[in-house]
């Protein structure tokens, strides 16, 4: 339902129901880094006890990781470990993970947050330096390998960080903070180039 609305692009006809993703299409290119807003995706915030994890993994089609700071990805769907019983599931293939969880009888809480978050891709050799402009975590490949994911902070806001490649990160932030985060990363990218 929300998915169909999110894909809608006709602004004039039905302005009251139109979903307008924040910062659509914005991007900045510095010498060593590209900061770019990613297209909308389906997301859920998932809380579940250990006993429910196998059933939920099966329904979602991706094994929920149980190790801190890790993620698992399969078929355009990524599950990020956020806490001991908490995951962020992002689907970029257009399928709704909320619907997949609905049929699971095992105890869990799945909340749709597709429109709460904005994703920003930071790519290039200076990607880690760009994020480190406001994020205190160690982003070297030893400490934060490809696939590592963590909730952390960037400047004054909370973000969820996922390393998608050696020189690429996905930054998830709340929609209302997205302008701040994008500007912060843009400024950081200029410093990273230096």
């Amino acid at each position, binding site marked *: 339902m929300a998915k169909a609305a999110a894909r809608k692009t006709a602004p004039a006809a039905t302005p009251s129901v139109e979903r307008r993703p924040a910062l659509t299409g914005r991007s900045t290119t510095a010498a060593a880094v590209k900061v770019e807003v990613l297209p909308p995706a389906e997301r859920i915030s998932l809380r579940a006890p250990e006993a429910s994890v196998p059933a939920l993994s099966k329904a979602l089609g991706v094994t929920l990781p149980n190790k*801190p*700071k890790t993620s698992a990805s399969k078929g355009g769907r990524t599950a990020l470990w*956020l*806490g001991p019983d908490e995951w962020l599931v992002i689907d970029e293939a257009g399928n709704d993970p909320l619907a997949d969880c609905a049929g699971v009888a095992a105890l869990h809480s799945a909340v749709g947050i597709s429109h709460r978050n904005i994703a920003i891709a930071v790519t290039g050799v200076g990607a880690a330096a760009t994020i480190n402009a406001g994020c*205190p*975590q160690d982003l070297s490949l030893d400490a934060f390998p490809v696939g590592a994911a*963590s909730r*952390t*902070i960037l400047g004054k806001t*909370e973000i969820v960080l996922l390393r998608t490649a050696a020189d690429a990160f996905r930054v998830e932030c709340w929609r209302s903070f997205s302008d701040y985060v994008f500007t912060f990363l843009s400024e950081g990218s200029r410093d990273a180039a230096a």
Partner: protein
Amino acid sequence: MLLIRCPYCEEERPELEFRNAGEAHIARSANMAGETDDDFEKFFFIRSNPKGIIYERWRHMHGCARFFNAVRDTVTDKFIMTYKAGEPKPSKLPGVGK
């Protein structure tokens, strides 16, 4: 910047991700209505505030978001150890002669 070990994330993380949440191991009475005013005052307001080793609750606010307990020296601001919420007070502290 201090590095604090989160027992749930199993690694040291920068202090900016954490919040202090007051003194640890303060048990709430199972019969709160039956508490005398003096006992309630002790439970609710009185904290040990020691110079030296203190047991505190901390929260990994911008990380796994879990509460845990930490042992810290208030003089040096050094974290001696951290352990999961619900675990008993450690009887022996590493690196502390006592």
